[in-house]
């Protein structure tokens, strides 16, 4: 295991055990002592500690896993699950937003349209990808591709992974809120099957802008929230440092969202998060997508539109007294 995988604060005990193992290896090279028994003992402890930490992640720790720099991003899933991805660029109005990509692909012999938010792996790529925060043109490109999908009868699969839509001057000047609003309205009446998967961060309106779909799935450690934990903490607790508190109060973890009926399925991740075994994660996502697509494909366009309307229509809790 690449030790750089343990980068999160709560993974500190794992980092320390890794260090001990390294030191033993190093010592063994420099002398003739047989340390294999010691190493095995620490490795066993490492596995045990991993299980301990990862099987009882707090909601905030899950948020950190969802933001893990090694977490699989949309292109990783696209490469693993789909064939013949043809990326289609641009909103035909302003420019090509690299934080939101899309295009046609084959999924088990079925042509589909993919729409995905994309973060960068390093600083250089993150500048290109704008840290996965789309501008209005990203949402407009997404809508263009979804209309294209509708025209040619392709199901749409959206990968949601954004801290939020970009809060910038140009983004406001080109009306990002309008772009997100229009996407929701237009997605509500798309006449093809639509599925979205929250694979990492489901950051507020920026996520919902590609999330009004027949089915909404979420990875086990992903989150979906009306505001970032830090943003909520800054407003209600007057301090961003209270993000863990805000995370718990808002109940943004996958299991809650499933209980609330906001998502149809939670896709399991390997111990410690998707990045610990991307292939296993991709296989679980593949199975879930196949299942939901198979359920939606037989439905007529009218049924799809009605089902989607009813799905979102019932979300929300209020009281109503009769007087």
């Amino acid at each position, binding site marked *: 295991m690449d030790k750089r995988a343990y980068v999160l604060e709560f993974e500190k005990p794992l980092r320390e055990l890794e260090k001990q193992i390294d030191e033993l290896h190093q010592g063994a090279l420099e002398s003739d002592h047989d340390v294999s028994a010691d190493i095995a003992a620490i490795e066993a402890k490492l596995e045990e500690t991993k299980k301990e930490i990862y099987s009882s992640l707090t909601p905030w720790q899950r948020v950190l896993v969802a933001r893990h720099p090694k977490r699989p991003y949309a292109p990783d899933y696209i490469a693993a699950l789909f064939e013949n991805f043809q990326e289609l660029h641009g909103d035909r109005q302003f420019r090509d937003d690299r934080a939101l990509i899309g295009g046609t692909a084959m999924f088990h012999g079925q042509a589909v349209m993919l729409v995905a938010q994309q973060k960068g792996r390093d600083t250089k790529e993150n500048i290109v990808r704008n840290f996965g925060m789309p501008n209005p043109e990203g949402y407009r490109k997404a809508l263009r591709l979804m209309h294209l999908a509708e025209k040619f009868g392709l199901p749409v699969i959206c990968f949601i992974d954004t801290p939020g839509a970009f809060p910038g001057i140009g983004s406001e000047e080109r009306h990002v809120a309008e772009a997100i609003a229009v996407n929701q309205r237009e997605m509500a009446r798309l006449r093809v099957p639509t599925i979205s998967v929250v694979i990492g961060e489901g950051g507020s309106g920026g996520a919902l802008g590609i999330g009004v779909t027949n089915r909404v799935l979420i990875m086990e450690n992903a989150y979906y929230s009306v505001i970032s934990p830090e943003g909520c903490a800054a407003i209600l607790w007057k301090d961003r440092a209270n993000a863990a508190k805000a995370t718990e109060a808002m109940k943004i973890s996958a299991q809650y*969202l499933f209980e609330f009926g906001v998502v149809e399925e939670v896709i399991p991740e390997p111990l410690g998060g998707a990045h610990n075994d991307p292939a296993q994660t991709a296989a679980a996502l593949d199975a879930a997508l196949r299942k939901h697509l198979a359920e939606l494909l037989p439905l007529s366009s009218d049924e799809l539109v009605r089902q989607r309307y009813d799905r979102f229509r019932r979300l929300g809790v209020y009281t109503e007294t009769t007087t």
Partner: protein
Amino acid sequence: MAHFTKPKLATSGRKKKSIPEGLWTKCPVSGEIVYNKDLEENLMVVPKSGYHFPIGAAQRIKALIDEGTFKEYDRNVKSADPLQFVDSVPYPTRIARYEKESGLTEAVICGMGRIHGIEVSLAVMDFRFCGGAMGGAVGEKITRAVERATAGKNPCIIISASGGARMQEGIFSLMQMAKTSAALARLSDARLPFISVLTHPTTGGVTASFALLGDVILAEPGALIGFAGARVIKETTKQTLPAGFQTAEFLLQHGLIDQIVSRLEMRDRLRDILLALFVRQTGTETKAPAAPETAATVG
């Protein structure tokens, strides 16, 4: 538009607008002193400067709707506490306080009424209740107002004043954006007009859903309208915000809104727009036009 003086616009140190209390009020733009009674009679618009103070939903409805024609709906739809949310105080305690302080049951009043004889489905938000934030109750009431318009073949008018989604209801608040937008898709498919009126302030999740989906979007002068907060944008981008950023005037220039309309002219303007988009006069009777034959081929 020369009906009012253009307010001085600033992105920093913007004065917090609130409904004035006491005997008289100083206009923050011109400095003129206005008696509150006169201000109220003028719909909280300062006569000379044209500065718009906030106004409650009930007063607004009174000013817009033909006398005696307003019928309120869904008054009993109120906020629940789906997350058992507690920050410094429990969420239900906050709600009780907003109810008491504002005298309202929720951050929006919905109903049917006539504007110069034209029957409309109306939703009017009130910033005094939880900053007009949209939670499950607001989302449900607005959705019903849109559905009522669709079912009754009436135009829909929503007057927004909101800080955005209501954090205390978490993901349920976010989903109200999808719910209201989906309802507006059906209204649009039925070829019924939706006029969205943006007032100070209209921000966050409300802009990213129904408020910016109007067939026609009007705004009151000087209204703050935007998705992300100015502070967040400054912190994220480290850039200086342009003068007048996120004001109605700025957004008119940038092509988002159709018109800036003084509150004093709003009622007549809504009629004028509905006359063009919706009403076909047949003698004294008014009725909605038949949808064209091609109505089925949308999108």
